[in-house]
C-alpha cells in the first residue's frame, strides 16, 4: 500500500484515528499559562519528557504590562519546577527556534500555537493544538490524531526575480480559500522543490494553517540535510518522502515561473491580489519579521532593496529578527546597519507587532503591510485598522514609496 507523507509519519492510513507518541511539545506565553493550569487541574505532577518539552516567552516579550509579566513569571516557575526547556525573553520566535534547534524529519510535534505547522518544512508532523491537548501531551507524551487525507501541491520551475515562498503560499491560499484544506495535509512536491530554500519552505509550511490545513509537509531531502548540517545537527537528518504512487484527494499544479508578487488584503488571508494592482494604497506601517518571514534570507532581501534609501516619511518601518542567530548573522552581514540607516526600528528577536500586543500596535484607520501570516480584523490593534500581507521584498519596496509597491519596480 503506497503512502502519503502524512500516512508515513503517523504510520496509518488516512481516516484512521491513532494515538501518537509526541517527540516535542511546546507552548508559548499567551497559551502557556492556561496549559500549565490545565496540567495542574488534571492532577499531573511530572512531565513525560522534560528535555523534549519547551516553553517560549516570545509573543509579548519583553513584557509590555504587569498582567503579562505575571504570566511570564508563572511559566518560569513551571519550567524551574518541571525541568523543561525555557526560551526566555529575547530568545526568538518559538517556531524559528524549533526549526533551528529542535525539530527533525519524522518527528511528531505538538505546540500550543497554530503556526506549529512551520516545522512541516523539515518533514515533521507538526500541528497546533489548544492548551488542554498540550497539557495532556506534556504529561503523557502522546496525543490522539486523525490521520488526514492529503492534497498534493506539485511545483515546477523557478521563482522569477522578486518572487518568493510568501507569494507562492498567498497564491495557493487565494486559490483554495481559507478553508480549502481544513482537516487535510498539504503536501508539497514536484521538481520545483529543489529551487525552494529551507527558509522559503518554512514560510510556506507556516502559512498552510491559513488554508485550514492540519499540517503542511515537505519531504526531507538534500536541502533539509544541508540545513540541518548548517545548524550542527547533521545526525538529525533522515530522508523522507511520500511513495511515488500515493493517493491524494487532489493535486494542485503550480509553475513557480508564473507567480508574481502577491498581497493578501484585509481582512482575510484568501483575499489576494497581485501587488501591482494595489498601487496607490497608502501604508502607515511596514512590519518585517515573525515566524513567517523573520529569517536571515528575508532580512537580506529587505536590506538589499532598502540599501542607500530611506523609508517614506509617512511610513514607519519595524523589523524583528526571528531569533538571536538571525540577528547576529544579519549584523555580521551588515543588513541591520543598512536597515537602521534606512530608518528602521529594530526589535528584539520575538513576535513583535504580529498579534497586536505590543511593539507596533495599529491605530484606527491605519494600514500596515506586514510579512506575518494573519490579517484578521483586530489582529494588530484597532479593529478599525487594515492589515495587508506580503513578502519581505514587497514590504521593503512599500516602506520606500509609502504605498503598496510591486518590488520588481525597485530591482
Amino acid at each position, binding site marked *: 500500500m503506497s503512502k502519503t507523507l502524512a500516512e508515513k509519519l503517523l504510520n496509518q492510513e488516512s481516516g484512521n484515528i491513532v494515538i501518537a507518541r509526541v517527540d516535542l511539545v511546546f507552548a508559548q506565553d499567551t497559551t502557556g*499559562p492556561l496549559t500549565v493550569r490545565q496540567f495542574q487541574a488534571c492532577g499531573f505532577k511530572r512531565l513525560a519528557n522534560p528535555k523534549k518539552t519547551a516553553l517560549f516567552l516570545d509573543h509579548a516579550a519583553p513584557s509590555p504590562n504587569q498582567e503579562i509579566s505575571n504570566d511570564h513569571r508563572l511559566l518560569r516557575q513551571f519550567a524551574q519546577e518541571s525541568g523543561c526547556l525555557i526560551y526566555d525573553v529575547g530568545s526568538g520566535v518559538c517556531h524559528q527556534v524549533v526549526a533551528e534547534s529542535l525539530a527533525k524529519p519524522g518527528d511528531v510535534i505538538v505546540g500550543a500555537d497554530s503556526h506549529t505547522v512551520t516545522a512541516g518544512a523539515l518533514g515533521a508532523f507538526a500541528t497546533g493544538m489548544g492548551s488542554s491537548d498540550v497539557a495532556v501531551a506534556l504529561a503523557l507524551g502522546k496525543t490522539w490524531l486523525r490521520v488526514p487525507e492529503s492534497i498534493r501541491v506539485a511545483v515546477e520551475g523557478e521563482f522569477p526575480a522578486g518572487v518568493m515562498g510568501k507569494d507562492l503560499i498567498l497564491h495557493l491560499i487565494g486559490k483554495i480559500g*481559507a478553508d480549502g484544506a481544513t482537516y487535510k495535509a498539504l503536501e508539497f512536491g514536484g521538481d520545483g522543490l529543489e529551487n525552494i530554500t529551507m527558509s522559503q519552505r518554512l514560510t510556506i509550511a507556516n502559512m498552510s494553517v491559513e488554508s*485550514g490545513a492540519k499540517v503542511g509537509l515537505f519531504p526531507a531531502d538534500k536541502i533539509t540535510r544541508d540545513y540541518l548540517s548548517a545548524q550542527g545537527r547533521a545526525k538529525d537528518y533522515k530522508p523522507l518522502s511520500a511513495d511515488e504512487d500515493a493517493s491524494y484527494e487532489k493535486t494542485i499544479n503550480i509553475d513557480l515561473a508564473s507567480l508574481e508578487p502577491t498581497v493578501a488584503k484585509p481582512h482575510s488571508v484568501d483575499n489576494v491580489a497581485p501587488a501591482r494592482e494595489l498601487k496607490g494604497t497608502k501604508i502607515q506601517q511596514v512590519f518585517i519579521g515573525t515566524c513567517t518571514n523573520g529569517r536571515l534570507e528575508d532580512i537580506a532581501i529587505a536590506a538589499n532593496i532598502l540599501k542607500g534609501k530611506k523609508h517614506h516619511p509617512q511610513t514607519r518601518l519595524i523589523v524583528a529578527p526571528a531569533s538571536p542567530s538571525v540577528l547576529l548573522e544579519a549584523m555580521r552581514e551588515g543588513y541591520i546597519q543598512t536597515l537602521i540607516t534606512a530608518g528602521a526600528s529594530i526589535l528584539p528577536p520575538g513576535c513583535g507587532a504580529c498579534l497586536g500586543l505590543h511593539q507596533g500596535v495599529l491605530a484606527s484607520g491605519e494600514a500596515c503591510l506586514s510579512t506575518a501570516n494573519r490579517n484578521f480584523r483586530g489582529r494588530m490593534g484597532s479593529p478599525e485598522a487594515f492589515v495587508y500581507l506580503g513578502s519581505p521584498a514587497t514590504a521593503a519596496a512599500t516602506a520606500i514609496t509609502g504605498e503598496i509597491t510591486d518590488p520588481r519596480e525597485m530591482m
Partner: protein
Amino acid sequence: MLKGKALKLGDSITTDHIIPGRYAHLRSNLPELAKHVLEDADPKFTSRVKKGDFIVAGSNFGLGSSREHAPLVIKMAGVRAILAKSVARIFFRNAINLGLPVLICNTDNIDDGDKLEIDLKAGTIKDTTNGNQLNFSQIPDIMLAILDKGGLIPYIQKYGDFRL
C-alpha cells in the same frame, strides 16, 4: 435534550473576533476577558446571550489561533453549543476538550432568535420556530467520549489515558 435560542453570526468568525489579541493581558483573568467575547463580530453579543443559548454560524467558524480561551469565554458566556456549516480544526478540538459541543449542519434556514431543541444522542436539531428538522454530522467516537465526560481534563482524570 438541549433547549435555547439561536444567536446568528456570519461566516469566517475568527479567534480574533472572539477574543482579540489586544486583550491578551486578560488571559489569566477569565471573568474580565469574557466581557469582551465576540465584541468585534457583534458588539451587542454579551447583552444578547442568555444561559443555554446556541451560537448559529456560517462556514469556517473559529479559524485562526490555537487559543483555547476562545471557546472558553464562549462557554463562560452561557452558550450551550455551537452550530456551524463548517468549523476550523483547532477550534473544533478545543471546544470539545472544554465540553462545548460543536455541531456541523446546514444553518441557512435557522434565523436569529429561533427556538431550537437539540438531541445530542439522536443527532437531531429541531427549529421549533419554523418547524424544520436538521441532522448534524457524526462526531468521532473519541470526541463523543470526551464530550460525554465534560471535556478532556475530566476524561483523562477518569481514564488516565486515551481510549480508542
